[in-house]
Every structure is written in C-alpha cells, then in structure tokens.
C-alpha cells in the first residue's frame, strides 16, 4: 500500500512538532524516519498510525483519505518503543488480541486464531512461549511479541517507534536482521523511527531525514550518505569534519586546506570532509598527528592542523605507517561537501 503525506503540520501548544511534511512511501517499502530527538519523527509516525491528528495537511492510504480516521479503522500495526504488551495476558493472548476484538463475521474461529498465533510466534522465533507472561520474557523476546502482535491483524502498514531503542547492542543487531527478514517474508509496507543512523542506513530501503519538524532529505542510504542535500544531513549522517571558510572561483579554502567546490557561489561557506577523504600528499597542508588507533582493517587518526583545527581521519591499515603519533604529516582533501554558509 502506498502512503501519501501531504503538507502535514502539527504543534503541541506553542511547540511546532511538524512544519509541513510531505512524503510518499511506496508499496512494500522499508522506510526509516531518521532524526535527532525533537525532530518530529515520532509525531509523524503517530500521525500515520492515527494516534495523533494533524492540524493541517492530509494523509492518504492509497487513494483513501485517512487524515482523521481513528487508529482502530486504519489497519495499521504499531510497535511501541517500550513494547506496551498487555501485562495481564499471556504471550498468546497478546498476539491474538487484534483478532479477538473483531466483531461478528470478521472474527476468525478460535482454531483459526490459535493457528495464526502459532504461525506468528514461529515467525518471530518464539514458538512454544505462548503460555508465558510478558514479565517472564527478556527485552528482546518482548519486542518480538510486540512485532508478532502487530503483524497478527495483517496490517496494511507496519509502524515501529524506536523498535530497538531499549535493547543492548548485541540483541539490537540480531533483531535488526530479523526485522529485515520478516519484512522480506511478509512484504508489508514498513516505516520505522530511529535516531541511530547506522540502524537506518543498514536496514532501510530509503531514509527520510527530519530536523526541526521538516524533512531535509529522502533517499536511499547511499544517496543520503554520498550526496547529502543539506549541511544538516551531511553532519548527521556519517562521520564528517566540519570546516568554516570561503569559496572563491570554485575552490573552498580554510587555513591551509583547499578543496574543489564546483558550482558553489563565492563567499562564506562550510565544508564537510568524510574521514576517509584525507590522503597523504607532499604538497599538502601540515597536520600534527596526536593519536593513532588500529581497529581491524582501519586506522583511526586524530590530528590538529597548524590553525588548530581538529581532524578525524580514517586510513587503511596499509597506509597507517604514514601516520606516526607525534610526527607531522602532509595531507590533502580528496573531496568535500561544500555549502554556502
């Protein structure tokens, strides 16, 4: 199902949470809403779910306007950050809830519900735990139950609010893969909210980056990382060194650093340089190497230029010999993202 969000605005009291957001989510897509806290990503997700209603704008599922439809009518599956499992019900009753509350002909038979619960618990690899209560499960298991419960009603769209936020790093990584597997198996349009760029880039087909209630950029993980549309995206997605300087004649200069900035008008500008875009060059600017850390195939280098600007550099292990702590290395910048300031 396609979801169209058109010029949605929402404020809480005097605090504007969403300031005119437009976004198209394609059928069967796995989309991440990425942004810092307070960027409006959760508000947008809740507006799609029908747990929050926009002040202005429109939300449509396919051709159907659902802007003011209640959560119960929309057919969404929502997974909450803190799971929100029904504490007084067993795991099986939790998963069955959405089918159980249906009325009349829409309600499946007891046997059909039991079969569906069984199927979903197997899908999230919790087969045999149906009789347990949520308090008897680990955090990761609870999140799986929440996922199974949301999927039980065959939702038209699956919405997840910081689904892995409360879990430890190892569980988080394995659940991430799990979500991708389940998404591929069910094919349901999925939107998840996260503030963790690594999570968004690894898991999503497309990423929408929000800041201060507006969408800064929508694109594939490669697009937002390699061709960031704004300084905010550039600084938020991936690591970057930030320089303030000036552009003249298509070249950005800050202290001894110079890099091509094609198409940027003359004047004050900011440049973002990815840590792997520094290379050793005899004619380059001098940087004092302070610390070198080896991590697997990479070397992380901390350096300071003669103007006192701190640099984060990533070099391949083979190049690590060129960087010796305490020595000075001559560097040049291969590429940078330059924006008028």
């Amino acid at each position, binding site marked *: 199902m396609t979801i169209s969000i058109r010029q949605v605005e929402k404020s809480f009291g005097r605090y504007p949470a969403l300031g005119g957001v437009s976004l198209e989510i394609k059928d069967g897509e796995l989309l991440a809403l990425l942004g810092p806290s307070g960027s409006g990503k959760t508000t947008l997700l809740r507006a799609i779910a029908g747990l929050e209603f926009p002040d202005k704008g429109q939300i449509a599922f396919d051709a159907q306007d659902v802007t003011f439809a209640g959560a119960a009518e929309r057919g969404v599956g929502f997974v909450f950050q803190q799971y929100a499992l029904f*504490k007084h019900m067993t795991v099986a009753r939790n998963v069955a809830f959405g089918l159980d509350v249906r009325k009349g002909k829409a309600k499946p038979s007891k046997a059909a519900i039991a079969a569906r619960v069984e199927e979903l618990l197997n899908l999230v690899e919790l087969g045999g735990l149906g009789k347990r209560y949520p308090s008897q499960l680990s955090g990761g298991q609870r999140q799986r139950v929440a996922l199974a419960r949301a999927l039980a*009603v065959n939702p038209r769209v699956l919405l997840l609010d910081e689904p892995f936020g409360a879990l430890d790093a190892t569980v988080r990584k394995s659940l991430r893969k799990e979500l991708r597997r389940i998404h591929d198996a069910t094919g349901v349009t999925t939107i998840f909210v996260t503030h963790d760029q690594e999570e968004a880039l690894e898991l999503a087909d497309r990423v929408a980056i929000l800041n201060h209630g507006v969408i800064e950029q929508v694109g594939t993980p490669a697009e937002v990382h390699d061709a960031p549309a704004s300084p905010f995206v550039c600084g938020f997605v991936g690591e970057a060194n930030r320089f303030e300087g000036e552009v003249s004649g298509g070249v950005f200069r800050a202290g001894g650093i110079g890099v091509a900035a094609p198409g940027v008008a003359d004047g004050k500008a900011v440049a973002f340089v990815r840590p792997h875009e520094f290379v050793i060059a005899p004619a380059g600017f001098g940087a004092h190497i302070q610390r070198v850390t080896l991590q697997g195939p990479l070397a992380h280098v901390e350096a300071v230029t003669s103007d006192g600007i701190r640099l984060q550099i990533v070099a391949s292990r083979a190049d690590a010999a060129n960087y010796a702590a305490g020595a000075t290395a001559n560097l040049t910048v291969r590429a940078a993202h330059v924006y008028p300031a």
Partner: protein
Amino acid sequence: MSSAGIRKARLATEDPIWVKALILTLVVAFLTLVLILPLGVVFTQALAKGWKVAWAAVREPDAVAAIKLTLLVAAIAVPFNAVFGLCASWAIAKHDFRGKAFLITLIDLPFSVSPVVAGLIYVLVFGAQGWFGDWLIDHDIKILFALPAIVLATIFVTFPFVARELIPLMQEQGVAEEEAALSLGASGLRTFLRVTAPNVRWGLLYGVLLCNARAMGEFGAVSVVSGHIRGLTNTMPLHVQILYDDNDATGAFAVAALLCLLAVVTLVLKTTLEVAQPDVAGRRAH
C-alpha cells in the same frame, strides 16, 4: 586477626541496633496506647457481663435494624463510588482536558471538608426549609431523615477512596497499552474493559475495601441527616452512640465490637490481598 573479619555484615542504609530498638519501642508503645488498648477495652466491655448479654444486645430489634441499614447503605454507596472512582480516574489519568486540576481538587473535597458540614449541606438542600424542600414535600418524596440522605451522605464522605487509589496507579501505567489496543482495532469500550480495567483490578479492590470500611463506620455526616429514628434511620455507629447515651454500656460496646469485627475482616482481606499480590503493596510503598 583483624576486627573486620568478626564484624557482622551490615547494609550501608542500616542504622545502629540501638536506634532501631528505640524507634521500634516508641512505635509499639504508641500503637498500644492509642490503638490496641482501646480496641481491647471495646471487646472486654462488650463481654463484661458474659457473651450471652452481648449477644442479646446485638440481637435486639433496633440493633438488628441498625446492622441491616448499615449493610444496605454500604451495599449502595460502595458500588456507586467504585464505578464513579473508576470513571473519574480513567478520565483524569488517561486524558488531558481543561479543568483537570480542578476536578482532582473536587474529588479531594470530602477529605478536607468536615463530615458534619457535608451532612449540613444535604440538610440545606433537601430539608423542609431547604432549596428543594417545598417541591419535595409537594411530591411526597422523602430524602432527609430517610435512607436516601444517609446513602448520599455516605457517598459524599467515601467519594475519594477509590479514585485516590486508582489515579496514581493509572498515571504510572500511562496510555501505551491503550494505544496498542486501539491500533489493533479495539473500540474504546473494549479497550477499557480488556486493558485498562484489568490492569488496575487489584488497586480497585483495595480502594473498594477502604471505601467499604469507611462507609460502614461513618458517623458525622450520617448523624446530621439521619434523624436518629430508632429501628428506622439509625446506622450502627449512631446506634452505638444512642446506647451509650442511655447508659447501656454493654449494649453499646457489643454493637461497637461487631462494628470493629467488620473493620477487622476488611483489614484481613486487604492484608491477604497484599500477600497474594506483592506488586500492589510494593507500588503503594513508592
């Protein structure tokens, strides 16, 4: 060799033994003086002339009428306040609306207003000289000095017990489970019946027990509106007062002992609940 090896392990938050002993002694002494001794007096006085006399005092027709009236009033007031308390706390804890703080204050009002004043309010409203006095007399409806006023006064006084118990509990639980139920297609009513209510069932029961204990024991407000008609509008606490004023100490203490027993049953039920549901007791401690 070192003294540290012999020293008993002790929690950092634990006070020296003499402090604990002193405080405990004080508490026990105080409780004995103001709670246990008076209770003991009630029962010894009731049985002073033998249990047969006490039993007769309780079986006497006016006493039986008072017992029946007390149970009837509690049977009406407690369910009413349970339903009202559940609705009010649901509205307050799970929703945002204008005047919420005012509503909370209003619910607390019976705690801060003297029960006698509460009784007088009903006299002013429903009495012969009251706002609705003429209208009520014209239509031959009897509220004051009859069951309706006693029930109303009891409801007023025991109003806050259930709501006060449930509001903090519901606020702590938040609305995430309700939102989950709604997103799964449950209607508002179903969400309330299948998610909200079961989550507070122990707190509700606890509040109902407290409410019941107070409803059976209420004296002040009921005293003002009842009219003290023996065998008709006397509840147990009022009956005790009348017997005592008549110098019938045995009778007064016998009925008082029965009233105490009802309260003790309530307390035992409450304690049993706390043992069976440790999380209810634990949450209350916060």
